[in-house]
C-alpha cells in the first residue's frame, strides 16, 4: 500500500506541469501546428480580387489587344460576339431581359461588379488552360468582354486603377437573403377543395436513359497503340472540351469521315497544326488546345489517340 501511494504521488507531481502546458495550449487556441506562410508563398496563391479593386496586380490592357486575344482563346466557345457557341455560356447581350419570361443573364445584363470578371477569367479561363494568362492579358480580355457588352468604348484601356470605377448596370439589384419567404401552415383536414385539383403531367421523352452505360468503360478490347494510350489523358483534360461534341467547328471524335479527310494531309501536318494552332474552314484550333503547358510529345500523343479512338 505504502509504496503504491508513493508512486502515485510521484506521478502526480510530474504530471502537474505537463497538464498546465496542455491546458494553456487549448485555452489560447495555439496548438503550434503548421508553419508560417512566407510572403512569397502567399503571393503565388493570393489571386482573389474584390469589387473595390483590392487584390488587382499592376498591369493594363486595351480593348484592341483584348479583341485579338479573345478571338484566339475564347471565341471558339463563347462566340465572336460573346453570344455563346452551342451550349457554352454567352458573355454578352440580354440587356433589360431580367424580368422577361426567359431572362438572359450575362456579364452585361446581370453581373454586379467588373472585378468579378477579371477575377474569374484570371482563375478559371480559358476553360482548358486555367491560370495561364498574364495579368496584362487578363486586363485586355476583360476590357474586350466589357466592350462586347457596350460598357466601355473601343479606345478604352483597363488598368488596376480604373477597374473599380466601372459601374455595372445591374449593381443595385442584389439584396441579402430574406427567406423564409413562404408561410405554409400545417393543415391536416379539408385543406383544399378536391374538385379544384388540376394535375399537370410531365413532358415526355426527356428523362435520360437509365440503363448502365458500359460501352466506353470496357477496357478489355483496347486496340490502341501505346502513343494513343499515353495521349488519352491529355486528350481528356485539354482537347475533349471541343473535340468530344464538335464545339465551334472542331472535328468531333466520332466523325470518322472528317478525320479520314484530315488524315490525308499526313499525320505530321495534323500534329504540327495541333501544336502551332490552325485556322481552317470550320474554325480555330488554338495552339495546344490553349494549354501551353503541354509538351509537344503530349500533344502528338493526343492527336494519335484522336485518330485511333473509335
Amino acid at each position, binding site marked *: 500500500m505504502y509504496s503504491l501511494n508513493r508512486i502515485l504521488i510521484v506521478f502526480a507531481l510530474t504530471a502537474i506541469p505537463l497538464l498546465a502546458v496542455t491546458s494553456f495550449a487549448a485555452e489560447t487556441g495555439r496548438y503550434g501546428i503548421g508553419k508560417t506562410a512566407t510572403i512569397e508563398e502567399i503571393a503565388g496563391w493570393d489571386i482573389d480580387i474584390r469589387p473595390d479593386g483590392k487584390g488587382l496586380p499592376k498591369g493594363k490592357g486595351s480593348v484592341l489587344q483584348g479583341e485579338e486575344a479573345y478571338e484566339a482563346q475564347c471565341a471558339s466557345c463563347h462566340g465572336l460576339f460573346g453570344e455563346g457557341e452551342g451550349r457554352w455560356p454567352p458573355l454578352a447581350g440580354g440587356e433589360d431581359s*431580367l*424580368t422577361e419570361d426567359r431572362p438572359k443573364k450575362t456579364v452585361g445584363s446581370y453581373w454586379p461588379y467588373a472585378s468579378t470578371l477579371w477575377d474569374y477569367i484570371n482563375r*478559371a479561363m480559358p476553360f482548358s488552360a486555367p491560370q495561364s494568362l498574364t495579368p496584362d492579358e487578363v486586363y485586355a480580355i476583360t476590357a474586350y468582354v466589357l466592350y462586347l457588352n457596350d460598357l466601355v468604348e473601343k479606345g478604352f484601356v483597363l488598368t488596376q486603377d480604373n477597374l473599380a470605377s466601372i459601374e455595372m448596370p445591374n449593381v443595385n439589384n442584389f439584396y441579402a437573403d430574406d427567406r423564409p419567404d413562404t408561410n405554409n401552415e400545417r393543415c391536416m383536414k*379539408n385543406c383544399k377543395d378536391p374538385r379544384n385539383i388540376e394535375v399537370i403531367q410531365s413532358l415526355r421523352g426527356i428523362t*435520360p436513359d437509365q440503363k448502365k452505360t458500359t460501352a466506353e468503360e470496357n477496357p478489355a478490347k483496347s486496340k490502341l497503340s501505346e502513343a494513343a494510350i499515353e495521349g488519352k489523358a491529355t486528350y481528356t483534360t485539354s482537347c475533349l472540351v471541343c473535340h468530344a461534341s464538335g464545339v465551334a467547328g472542331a472535328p468531333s471524335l466520332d466523325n470518322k469521315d472528317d478525320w479520314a479527310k484530315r488524315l490525308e494531309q499526313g499525320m505530321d501536318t495534323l500534329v504540327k497544326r495541333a501544336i502551332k494552332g490552325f485556322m481552317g474552314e470550320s474554325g480555330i484550333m488554338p495552339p495546344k488546345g490553349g494549354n501551353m503547358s503541354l509538351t509537344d510529345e503530349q500533344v502528338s500523343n493526343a492527336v494519335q489517340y484522336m485518330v485511333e479512338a473509335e
Partner: protein
Amino acid sequence: MADSKKPETSKEYLAELTAHVPPTSRRDFLKKGVKFSTSLAAVAATSEALSDNLPPHVSSWSKSLGTGVVSTPYGVPSKFEENVIRRTVPWLTADKISSISMSPLQELKGIITPNGLVFERYHAGAPAINPAQHRLMIHGLVDNPLIFTMDDLMRFPSESVINFLECPANGGMEWRGPQMEALQFTHGMISCCEWTGVRLSTLLAEAGVQSKGKWVLAEGADGAGMSRSIPMNKALDDALIVYAQNGEKLRPEQGYPVRLFNPGWEGNTSVKWLRRLKIGDKPWHHREETSKYTDLMPDGRSRRFTYEQEANSVITSPCPENPWGQKGSYEIEGIAWSGRGKIKQVDVSIDGGVTWRPAKLKGLVLTKALTRFCLPFKWDGSPGLLQSRAIDETGYVQPTLSQLRNVRGTNSIYHKNSIHTWQLQSNGKIKNVQLK
C-alpha cells in the same frame, strides 16, 4: 445549371422504366440455357433457371464454394446491384467536366449515402491531387499566416458529424413544370455522409483572426479555383475542414484530400480540394456568388448569399423507379431534411393535399441530416396523389409549389424545396406530376 433547354431526342421512357424488372422473355431464355451445376457460383447464378435455386431445390451456391478473401481487396457491391449508380442529365450542361450527377435515392436505405454514390458537382472536373503535395494556406487579416500539410491537419482534435450535402439546384429543373420521370433526377442532388475533420474555428484560432476579419474566402485547388465568401459567424459556428467521409478518406469527387464543409448550407459553399482560406473585412462577390448561385426574382432583382437549404422532403417508395405491384400492404417511405436544424414532423397525403396524416420518423433524427419517415399503407388499387410535407424544428413548414412560385416566379433556378407530388396509377405505376 438548370437552363430549361429541351433536348431534341425523344425516348420511349416507359420501356426503360421496366428495363430493370426481369422481363418474361429473359426468364424463358434462362430456363432454356445450359446448366453448369458444378462450375463457379458466379457463372452458375446467371446461367441456371431461376426456379432451380428455389425451394425445394438446394441453391447452387449452397453446393459450391464462393470467392476467397481479398479477391476484391477494396470491396464492390454485388453485380446484381449494377443498376445502382450515379447518373447525369446530359442535356443540362455543355460537357461532363462542368456538370452534375445525381445519387440513386430510389435505391438507398437509411440515411447514409455510400461514398461511391454521393452526387458529384464539378466546375472544372475532379483533380487528381497528391496529398503529400497539397497545402492549406490561411492568411489575410490574421496574426499568423499559416500553411498546413495534410499531416498537420490530422494532428488537430477531430470531430465527426452526420450531415446532408445538397446542391441548391436540386429540383431546379422543374420550376416551370414536371420534366423528369425519375426520383433520381427530380431530387438526386443530395447525399448524406458522416464527415470527419477539424473545426474551422480551431484553425482560425491557430492563425489568430484580427478583429476586422468578418469574412472567409474559401478557394479550391481545382481548375475552376472554385471560390466562395463565408461569413465569420458560420466559420466559427459549425464549419468543418473535412478529410474523411463515412470512415475513409474523402473520395476525389468529394474534394480529396481536404474540403470545407458547411452543414445545412448550399453544397457549393463547401469548397472542395480546399487550398486557401483568406480572412477579409468584406465579401468578395466572386462568380459563384454573383453570376451563379443568386436567385432572380420576378421583379428583376436578385437575392444573394442564399446559403441555407430550407426544409424539404420526398417520397422514395413508391416513386417512378419503384412502382407498386399487386394490392396489399406497403410502407410509404421517404426522406426529409432541413438546413436549419432537425426535422420535427413529416406528414403524408395520398389525395393531393386535401387530408394529411402524420408519418413516423424512424432511425436517427439528427440536425441538418437526412431523416427517414414512413407510413404503413394498405393499397386497394385506387389511384392517388402522394405527397410529403416536412416541418423542421424552427416551425417552418415545407411550402407548396404555388406558394413558392407566388413569391419567386419561375426563374430563380435554385432552392426549389416545394412539396412534391407522385401520381399513383391503378396499375401501381408512379408518374411525376405537379398540382395546380
